[in-house]
């Protein structure tokens, strides 16, 4: 199973006495696009933040790209440089230009030369369609543009998998589509993606598998057509009826 990029086995996590994740099992294959949805507080963000160990899990195993994540790990850097992450609030580095935001990762981690990092950065900025903003600072950009820079920044590290943590939740409706378009084209090019999102149209169009989480558990998963057409569980039906009502 060398094609498995993320393997989650019986993972549980607690915040103090509160159990956020309960026996989660999940495998992500190379090239797979997965959308995780669920009500707020269901642990979906927490789950994907465990994949690059921004959060620690207490029970079970998570294997990312062949490396087991655990407490005393030295290889956490090796995992993180192969796992790109896009955040809800972009988290661009405000004191650097857009171009520098994209260059620092390759330069400081992979030891790539400045000229080469610049080339890669411009190439990916081109791909998210904002090369002309390269020398601006993040505050000068719109939300949608900032999020696309954040995607480019992650792509510059040439990760094996991209994690999206509600990438469009903080955006205006008009800007949502530009970010979703970028994500869709990324998916078409074969990038392995795990997205926490409420954009059901995106899930329908792009996802290979939709996962529904509730109260720290994976309640249901399936191909998007089946998932949306006949959800099996009551909780899923309720969630979908709420979210698709509008």
């Amino acid at each position, binding site marked *: 199973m060398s094609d498995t990029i993320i393997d989650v086995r019986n993972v549980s996590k607690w915040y103090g006495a509160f159990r956020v994740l309960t026996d989660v099992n999940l495998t992500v294959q190379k090239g797979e696009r997965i959308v995780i949805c669920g009500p707020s507080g269901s642990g979906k963000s927490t789950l994907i933040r465990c994949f690059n160990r921004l959060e620690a899990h207490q029970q079970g195993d998570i294997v990312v790209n062949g490396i087991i994540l655990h407490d005393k790990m030295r290889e956490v850097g090796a995992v*993180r*440089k192969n*796992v790109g992450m896009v955040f809800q609030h972009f*988290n661009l*580095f405000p*004191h650097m230009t857009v171009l520098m935001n994209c260059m620092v*990762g390759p330069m400081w981690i992979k030891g790539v030369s400045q000229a080469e990092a610049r080339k890669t950065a411009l190439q990916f900025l081109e791909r998210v369609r904002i090369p002309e903003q390269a020398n601006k600072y993040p*505050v*000068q950009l719109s939300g949608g543009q900032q999020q696309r820079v954040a995607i480019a920044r992650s792509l510059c*590290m040439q990760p094996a998998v991209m994690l999206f943590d509600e990438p469009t939740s903080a955006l205006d409706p008009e800007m949502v589509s530009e970010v979703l378009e970028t994500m869709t084209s990324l998916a078409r090019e074969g990038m392995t993606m795990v997205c926490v999102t409420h954009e059901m149209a995106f899930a329908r169009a792009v996802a290979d598998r939709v996962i529904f989480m509730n109260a720290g558990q994976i309640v249901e998963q399936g191909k998007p057509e089946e998932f949306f057409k006949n959800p099996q569980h009551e909780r899923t039906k309720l969630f979908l009826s709420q979210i698709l009502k509008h």
Partner: protein
Amino acid sequence: MLYPDTVESDVLVHKPWFITGLFAVVFAVFLAFDLTGTSLGDLMRPVIGDPAESGVYGRFAITFVIAVTLCLNIVLIGFAPLKVQVAVVWSELLLLFLAFFTTFNLSLPFMAEKLPFLITQGLFTTIYVSAISIVIASAIAILGAVAKLSTNGFAYAIASFYTSFFRGLPLLMQVYLIYLGLPQIGFVIDAVPAGILALSLCYGAYMTEIFRSGIQSIDRGQWEASRSIGFGFGVTMRKIILPQALPVIIPPTGNQFISMLKDSSLVSVIGVWELMFLARTLGQKSFQHMEMLISAAMLYWIVSIGLELIQSRIERHYARSKVR
């Protein structure tokens, strides 16, 4: 700059009610003091005759002149553009202070004679002691701030004991403890290193807290983004967090530098020939205390202004990324 509201408002100092009000207040305040005996009374001699015998009329006239001058001044300055206003007000205040100093009848030749030594020995010592202390204090502050924020109990305990101790003891006491206390355990230390050590430790403690608050002011998302790219703690701190914390840290740190410059006079108690020490001793022989003390004060001020300029330049440098 404060948040500039876009609603145009009239110039406050040109409103009749403001000027009248100001005039009334100034008039009332100065009328409360009898200024006939001061040098202002002397200046008004052509109008009020002998100040001592001018009585209520003299008092009234002096107050009137003060109030009119002040109000006229304010109204006129109100017409000027911002930069001119700043320059004019600065020079006026400076002139007032110079006028104040001239009343001491200072002996300028004496000052001119002693000034070179005051600068080459006193000011030079003050500056190099402060400069070295500032560098060491900043280094201590970064370490201390990281230790205070760490989850390592040992590091936290040392850092919090350190800040508590050195912020809690008077600086003078610290100077004595280091200069006189260390030899007790067999470690004899010279006066200058002892002074530098005391200043560094004391200001390092204050600056630890400044740096800690600066680091804490940075959004958690910045740490997450940096760590998720794969940067280690050191790179994240040096390249992501500290550069963003600096704009928050710099104004209070500038305060500390200026304050240290003057507190360095405390090391004179252990016989370091810095500016304040020389100012006191040089004037003693001929009882010309004021000359030397005022010279020293001016030198302190000039260096402080230098530090202020450096501070504002650094602040401008870091404001780049905030321009929309």
